């Protein structure tokens, strides 16, 4: 009789665990469905500004990805450069030609192509930084929210201290440290990695805080306590239940942070401590062109500047819309 009891309890335990896990899968399903629910889509279609922003972002991303194919020139192939072409103004001004629609820089590089390649680099670094920061921040946030206690306090204290220092400063610091520790010749190669690391370390806190707040709310709910009681493994609970609930706010943070990441990278490059001139991002291009501003060759820095501004602006618009759309209070 006792064996039947034991068997019964094991069976029900498995059944419950199964239920909790399939409920977990369902939660993911529901979470994704919630995002693409008609309410969100409706508010998206209703706002022409947002649709415009989305279109522009997509166009720029596509153009950047296809840079290799659609750029009229390869600005980084020294063999194809001709100094005689240097500092041509844009095509619609006297002295310009349609061979270089937006003009050329001091080395004869085509600005349009440089923008395309530069965008690719800027976007690439931005995305990488956001993904890594999200991974780091979400993980730490989940740990802090789930465990609570000392682990939570430590993580949050670090986060608090870090938050009071602006991202630029931290990014600069990390960059400076890397610069000091890495021998000079290797610097250009790992420059992009350093920039990504700098942005990640200065932006993970947003994700951690958001996720932690959401995790703490969910953690105390009854179905989570039930799952714990019947012995569902913590990892499963955290990933299957706590995580989907936090996805919405995290996505909002991620979108806004993408714009910030691109901006930070551009700023670092402009200041000379980001990407080197051999792998120019939009920021580096602007830096290059800055020297020629006073002599009247404005297009070298202004066009990349406009591209950068448009990119950041459209991503910000998307982020704003996303935040309003997912905010239960404003519905």
């Amino acid at each position, binding site marked *: 009789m006792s064996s039947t009891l034991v068997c019964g309890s094991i069976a029900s335990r498995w059944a419950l665990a199964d239920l909790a896990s399939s409920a977990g899968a369902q939660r993911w399903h529901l979470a994704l469905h919630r995002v693409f629910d008609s309410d969100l889509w409706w508010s998206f279609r209703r706002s022409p500004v947002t649709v415009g922003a989305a279109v522009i972002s997509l166009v720029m991303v596509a153009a950047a990805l296809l840079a290799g194919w659609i750029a009229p020139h390869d600005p980084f192939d020294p063999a194809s450069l001709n100094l005689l072409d240097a500092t041509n103004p844009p095509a619609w001004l006297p002295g310009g030609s349609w061979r270089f629609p937006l003009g050329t820089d001091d080395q004869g590089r085509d600005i349009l192509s440089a923008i395309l390649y530069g965008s690719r680099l800027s976007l690439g670094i931005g995305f990488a930084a956001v993904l890594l920061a999200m991974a780091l921040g979400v993980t730490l946030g989940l740990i802090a929210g789930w465990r609570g206690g000392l682990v939570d306090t430590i993580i949050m204290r670090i986060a608090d201290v870090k938050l009071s*220092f*602006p991202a*630029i400063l931290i990014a*600069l610091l990390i960059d*400076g440290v890397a610069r*000091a520790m890495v021998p000079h010749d290797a610097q250009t190669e790992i420059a992009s990695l350093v920039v990504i690391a700098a942005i990640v370390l200065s932006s993970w806190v947003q994700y951690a805080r958001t996720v932690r707040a959401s995790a703490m709310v969910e953690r105390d709910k009854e179905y989570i306590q039930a799952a714990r009681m019947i012995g569902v493994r913590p990892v499963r609970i955290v990933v299957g239940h706590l995580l989907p609930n936090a996805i919405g706010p995290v996505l909002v943070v991620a979108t806004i942070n993408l714009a910030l990441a691109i901006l930070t990278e551009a700023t670092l490059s402009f200041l000379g401590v980001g990407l080197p001139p051999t792998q120019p991002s939009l920021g580096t291009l602007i830096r290059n062109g800055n020297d020629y*501003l006073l002599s009247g060759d404005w297009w070298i820095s*202004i066009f990349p500047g406009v591209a*950068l501004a448009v990119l950041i602006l459209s991503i910000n618009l998307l982020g704003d819309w996303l935040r309003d759309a997912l905010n239960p209070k404003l519905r």
Partner: protein
Amino acid sequence: MLIFLARRLFQAVLVMLAVAFIAFALFNYVGDPIDSMVGQDTSLADRQQLRQELGLNDSFVVQFARFVGHAARGEFGLSYQQQRPVAQIILERMPATLELSFVSAALALALGVPMGIYTGLHRGSWLSQGLLGLSLVGVSLPTFLIGILLILVFSVDLKWLPSFGRGSVVHFGWWTSGLVTRDGWRAIIMPSVTLALFQMTLIMRLVRAEMIEVLRTDYIKFARARGLTNRAINFGHALKNTLVPVITVAGLQLGSIIAFAIITETVFQWPGMGLMFIQAVSSVDIPVMAAYLMLVGFFFVIINLVVDLLYHVIDPRLRIDREQVGIG
């Protein structure tokens, strides 16, 4: 109240020590201080002797203590680049940054707060929508791009304003001020506008969001039910409740102005601490970097402390004289 003050001071000291620790680690372990100070062909024996003289062979704790002691007295060692005391360089550059920061902060507040109030009160008006749109642009444009555009328009095209430097400055003791000369004012306009723009839009959005939240509260609803005039509600009640948390956040924003000054000073070649820091990062001038870090850390800690205290003073709910009175 005193307990609270003591506790915050203690926390502040802890944070400062943490910052000092990082600065110290930077100072001593990133790169070799000896290598940066002597030439390539100094003999090994000479280097060893130098290490001994500089106390680089002492234990970690001793070195750290020495570092903190020096820092407290304002000695940060010699700049690798310029071979002069870092403290001297900092003193030279500080007035420029501080003046720029204050003018920008004043500008950001003077414009940001009223705009925020207006857009919070008149949510649907076309002016509000316009301002909000512009604010989004302000948040999206990188600071350096704004600076470049301003230079393009006002220095290159119109030739009205200088594109770099501080203009003529006047010495008051160790302080140099550009605010007393006409030249200085012309020079500070573009940098301060550049620096203020980001802050201004942030403050405007903050004030607006807070105002909207406050206008949704029960006490505002009750004030309306009592028939108070719109003016009394908006400017008597809503405004005061909005500004209280805004003051604290705005105070914290002041800290980020100091950081963004780095960018602005670079664009305009403004001879402040930010430019000094960038140059130090480029040339790996560790002592200067460490000193800047400590200084900025100090500023932030002070600002945080003041803001906390201010909040306690302003909000009557947090004051000590709380008496819960008897029976309902």
